[in-house]
C-alpha cells in the first residue's frame, strides 16, 4: 500500500460520482468503498442506483447526492447498451437473499449481471451471513455458538459458480479498483464481496476505520482473493501475518471475549487460511 500510494491522483480518475455531501457517519467505510467503486466505474450510465442500505444515507427524501443521470435518456442507444449489463449494489442483510436469487436467475437466462455485496460489521449479528471466522459486537456465548450455525455468504455465492467472484476492501483501494474493472469486463455473472468497516456499529475511533479493514485483511479474517473462471488466486498477501488478537484489540466490542475464545477464533481463521 505504501509503495503504490504515492502519486495517487495521477493513477485514478478525478471524477466523483458518489455524493461528497452524504449523510453517513464520520469515518464510514461504506462511503469510502462506494466512492472508490464510483471512481472505477467511471461511466455514469452504468452506475448502480437501487434500493439498498446505500440509499439510507444518500437519498433522504428531498435530497439527492448522486452525480448520475441514469435514466435520463430513455429509448436512446445508451440505454440499450446499459441493458446488457445490470449493476446491483446492496448490503449483506435481507437484500442479500434477493441478490443470490437474482444471480441464479441471471445465470439461467444467460445475462450479464454484477452484484456487489457490502459487508458491514454491525449487521452481522442479526443476519448471520458471515464466514465461519465471523464476529459481532453482541456477547461471548452467542458469538461462539454462532461460529457453528452461520450462513456463509461467500460460500453460498461460490456455489452458484459465477464467472468472476472476488473479495475486496476499501483499505486496499487499487485492489478494489482492479476487481471492479474486471467485473465490468466479465461477460457472465460476477459477484464482488466488499468488506466495509463500521466505526459506529462496532464503537471504535472513526480514525481507525480503514486501519481496521487493513488488519482484517492481513490477519486473515477477510482474505482478499479472486476466482476467475475457476482459477483461485490470493491478490493481497500480508507481508507479516499478525495475530487476530491485534485486530480485536482495536475494537472495544471484543473486550468481553476471554483468551480461550480468542484462541478459538484464531484456530478458525488458521483453518480457513490453510484451505
Amino acid at each position, binding site marked *: 500500500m*505504501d509503495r503504490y*500510494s*504515492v*502519486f*495517487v*491522483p495521477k493513477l*485514478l480518475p478525478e471524477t*466523483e460520482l*458518489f455524493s*461528497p*455531501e*452524504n*449523510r*453517513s*457517519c*464520520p*469515518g*464510514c*467505510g461504506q*462511503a*469510502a468503498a462506494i*466512492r*472508490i467503486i464510483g471512481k472505477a466505474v467511471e461511466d455514469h450510465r452504468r452506475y448502480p442506483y437501487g434500493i439498498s442500505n446505500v440509499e439510507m444515507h444518500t437519498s433522504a*427524501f*428531498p*435530497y*439527492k*447526492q448522486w452525480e448520475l443521470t441514469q*435514466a*435520463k435518456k*430513455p*429509448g436512446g442507444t445508451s440505454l440499450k447498451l446499459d441493458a446488457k449489463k445490470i449493476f446491483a449494489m446492496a448490503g449483506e442483510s435481507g437484500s442479500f437473499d434477493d441478490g443470490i436469487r437474482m444471480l441464479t436467475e441471471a445465470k439461467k437466462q444467460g445475462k450479464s449481471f454484477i452484484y456487489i455485496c457490502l459487508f458491514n460489521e454491525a449487521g452481522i449479528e442479526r443476519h448471520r451471513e458471515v464466514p465461519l471466522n465471523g464476529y459481532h459486537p453482541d456477547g461471548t456465548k452467542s458469538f461462539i455458538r454462532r461460529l457453528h450455525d452461520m450462513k456463509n455468504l461467500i460460500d453460498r455465492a461460490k456455489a452458484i459458480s459465477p464467472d468472476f467472484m472476488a473479495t475486496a476492501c476499501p483499505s486496499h*483501494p487499487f485492489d478494489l479498483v482492479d476487481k471492479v474493472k474486471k467485473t465490468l469486463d466479465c461477460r457472465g455473472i460476477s459477484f464482488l464481496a466488499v468488506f466495509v468497516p463500521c*466505526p459506529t456499529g462496532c464503537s471504535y*475511533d*472513526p*480514525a*481507525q*476505520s*480503514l*486501519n481496521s479493514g487493513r488488519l482484517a485483511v492481513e490477519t486473515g479474517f477477510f482474505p482478499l482473493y479472486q476466482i476467475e473462471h475457476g482459477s483461485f488466486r490470493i491478490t493481497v498477501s500480508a507481508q507479516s501475518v499478525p495475530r487476530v488478537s491485534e485486530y480485536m484489540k482495536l475494537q472495544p466490542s471484543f473486550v468481553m471475549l476471554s483468551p480461550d475464545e480468542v484462541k478459538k477464533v484464531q484456530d478458525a481463521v488458521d483453518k480457513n487460511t490453510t484451505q
Partner: protein
Amino acid sequence: MKRIIAKTVKSYDIGGCLRRETFCALEWRAAKPVWNTDRCFKCGVCSLSCPDAAIIQVDEGFYDANPDRCKGCGICSEACINEAITMSPEKK
C-alpha cells in the same frame, strides 16, 4: 416498461422534488484536519482515503479540506505517510 421510466423521470424534472443542497458539517464536527506544509509531499493519499471526498488540491499542489464536507473523522491523519496532518479540536 420504458414508458413508466420516462414518466417518472419527467415528473422529477418538472416537480423538482430531487435536489441537491449544500451540506454543512461545520456545525457539529468535533475536530478538523490541519496540514503541516513542511512535511507534506503532495502524494494525495489523504484525498483518496477520505470517505466524503472533502480533501481537494489547493495552491501549489498542497491539499486542504473543504470545511462544509469534512466531518472530522481523522482517517486522513491516520493514512498520511509522513504524519503531516494533525487533528485539532474545532472551536465553537
